[in-house]
């Protein structure tokens, strides 16, 4: 009792881990989205490659990559544990349960939405991260390993990947899952951390709604724009 160590084994502690790692992952989404937006400002892809090069070589970013992976893993493992624990807390289900009468479907489906996102992440990481970090871009499709500035041409990889309609569809579906996951997760994290205030909670909730919609639209815009060749 009364120590930080056993705090995280309690139900509230487990939820705190979900909230804190969730907000940390949200901060990553902002950085990722910002870099994606480079695509829309330079049709040649040089700006995007510059950004990708910086992300791949800057030592602070590389160090944070390890922290990010740890945070992601913690969020996933803890999320799955909580989901199974919560299911076990009601061994006999209701014959008729009118969940929509008192809560939003996505707030009750965080485990499902998270699992969909995990499946997307596996595809997404093998699409780009594995290519960039491990297998090497020169092995990819025989495309040019470097752009005009001598940076590895992630832009070319991306264009090739997003020429496949099934992949674009998958990414868009995943971003819909992300939007709903965040729609509940953003505000929920603050409640878990104990911040519920008559004046500020409505602001947090509204920010969460706008953030979820805007960031998911921006993410989805990239593969869609590349597939249809809009402005690119």
């Amino acid at each position, binding site marked *: *009792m*009364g*120590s*930080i160590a*056993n*705090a995280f084994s*309690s*139900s*509230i*502690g*487990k*939820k*705190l881990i979900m909230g804190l790692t969730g907000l940390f992952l949200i901060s990553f989404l902002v950085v990722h989205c910002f870099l994606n937006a480079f695509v829309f400002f330079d049709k040649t892809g040089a700006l995007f490659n510059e950004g990708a090069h910086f992300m791949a070589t800057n030592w602070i970013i590389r160090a944070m990559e390890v922290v990010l992976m740890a945070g992601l893993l913690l969020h996933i493992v803890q999320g799955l544990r*909580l989901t199974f*624990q*919560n299911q*076990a*807390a*009601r*061994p*006999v*289900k*209701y*014959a*008729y*349960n*009118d*969940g929509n*009468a*008192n*809560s*939003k479907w996505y*707030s*009750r489906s*965080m485990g499902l939405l998270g699992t969909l996102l995990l499946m997307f992440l596996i595809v997404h990481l093998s699409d780009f991260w594995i290519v960039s970090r491990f297998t090497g871009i020169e092995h990819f499709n025989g495309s040019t390993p470097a752009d005009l500035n001598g940076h590895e041409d992630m832009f070319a990889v991306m264009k090739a990947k997003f020429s496949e309609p099934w992949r674009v569809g998958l990414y868009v579906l995943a971003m819909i899952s992300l939007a709903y996951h965040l729609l*509940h997760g953003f*505000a*929920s994290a603050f*409640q*878990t*951390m*104990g*911040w*519920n205030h008559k004046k500020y909670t409505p602001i947090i909730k509204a920010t969460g709604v706008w953030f979820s919609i805007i960031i998911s639209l921006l993410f989805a815009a990239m593969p869609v724009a590349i597939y249809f060749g809009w402005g690119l």
Partner: protein
Amino acid sequence: MSTGNMNLTLKVWRQKNSKDSGKMVDYKVSEISPDMSFLEMFDVLNEDLITKGDDPIVFDHDCREGICGMCSMFINGRPHGPKDAVTTCQLHMRSFKDGDTIVVEPWRAKAFPVIKDLTVDRSAFDRVIAAGGFISVNTGNAQDANALPIPKAQADAAFEAAACIGCGACVATCKNASAMLFVSAKISQLALLPQGQPERYKRVQNMVAQMDAEGFGNCTNTGACEAECPKGISLENIARMNRDFVTAKFVSEEEG
């Protein structure tokens, strides 16, 4: 709103004892007055069953005026039925229409095992209270009421938390069968008042530990509990409990 008497079909959970697997059984009730409470409608059905020589349906009830927290039916997918801010005993048959089919189940949670039919064992709540939901004071004459100044807003919030009747609707409706709304109300009613301060951080640690030990699920902030609570207990109490818990574990030197 109908004024004439109603004929209804009930689908009720029947379970002989905690070992029995139980099943839904259909019953017909006729000539039900819209002015009856839901429990009075069950009384009529039970009279019927007794006359026929059947086993009457066991259900919890006591004051029948919405203050004791005993009644506990999960009606048409919602605890205490379709109306907001009422208990089952305060639910009237005028909330239903002639010819309706009504599904009635017990609270479903690992921590609330079914004793018989619609009655569940809610002593898990009692054990959570026993773990710290009290203040330790010497007995004797009551103090002067205004000896300890308490801000109005603080007193109101404590009073609102204290309105919890411990019926368990929050657990029943929560997709995780979490007891966070109940426990947070019982912690808040003391944490907000001066009398609750000496044991504040010990209390939150002990009550949360007991809540976890009872097998309730974890809170995912769906807000279903707040929406279904017959006493309108707010999610603010859960946030307060979370704050107190973090303070207790990270800052306070109070042992649980």
